[in-house]
């Protein structure tokens, strides 16, 4: 369980940013490996792409879209903090980033089929 002194919006935003970044870093090598199939063996790539049309992969992709969205929006928030004058509405920005990421991920899965 999270320790009491860490249980606030700013720290949750940090955790989301860090773990979404790690998740994306783990995903990228797999992504490039699959792209590499296009050079190596196009039929392998085609069969892999057919496999990705299934529900479990689409659900995982929804998670990936969420990670991308939260990392992008969280990163923009951090850039705002570091390069623009301080805004007191950081919690609003954190909630917006989290909410928008959920909506983006949900929109992806709704349009996936």
């Amino acid at each position, binding site marked *: 369980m999270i*320790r*009491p*002194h*860490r249980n*606030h*919006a*700013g*720290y949750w935003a*940090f955790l989301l940013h860090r773990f979404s970044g790690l998740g994306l870093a783990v995903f990228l090598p797999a992504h490039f490996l699959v792209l590499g199939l296009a050079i190596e063996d196009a039929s392998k790539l085609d069969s892999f792409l057919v496999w990705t049309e299934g529900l479990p992969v689409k659900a995982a992709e929804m998670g990936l879209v969420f990670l991308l969205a939260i990392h992008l929006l969280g990163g923009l928030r*951090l850039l705002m*903090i*570091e*390069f623009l004058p*301080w805004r007191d509405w*950081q919690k609003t920005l954190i909630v917006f980033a989290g909410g928008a990421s959920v909506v983006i991920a949900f929109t992806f899965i709704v349009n996936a089929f």
Partner: protein
Amino acid sequence: MPTMSALNVSVWRGAADGRFETFEVPHSTNQTVLDVVTYIQRLLDSTLSYRFACRVGMCGSCAMTVNGRPRWTCRTHVTKVAPDLRLEIAPLKNLPVIKDLTVDMSDFFTKWQRAKGRFAPTKTRSDPVEKIIPDSQARQAADAGIECINCAVCYAACDVVTWNPDYLGPAALNRAWTLQNDTRDGDQRQRLRAVAGDAGCHACHTHQSCQEHCPKNLNPTASIAGLKAAAFRAALTGKL
């Protein structure tokens, strides 16, 4: 003060390798955490070590970890932090424990010096008094951070200090930022250099724990962000 019930209080005893000891303390209305510690020291165990001075939130000496969060104990009401009447009181984190609830603050204050948290005058007492426009941007930025009471609550709440013991910490950087915005100060370039290193402002992960816990409602995260931007601008213009 009418006594309502008993508090179950676990208090850290010994140095870093110590343990919690449990006391039963009468609970009363408007009781602060410092009242509880003082009751234990005066009536239950006179060997308990802790610090306090003003008891009104000015001196910054009574900060402790209360139920897992760093707090100024003289202004922390028991009813607000322990609705179940259970208190766990420990020394501040990120500072070496001397004994019981007292910590060695040397590192904390040494870092104020490392961050050049000392005003460097540019005039003598013979010069006319400098005119400071109260609503100027620099003065507003300085005003926002100058009420720090050196309690080290922000320092204890900061995970970056835990991960990197060399990190200057929120209080020292906040102090540096107030001086960077003091138009009378003559050490701004050297100070920016002092806080722009590896263990300086750029090490901050923007957790905002300092802002969250500051008992004076200051915002060291904003001060550190200001230093980051100032250091970036200075680096771009070759002034760092």
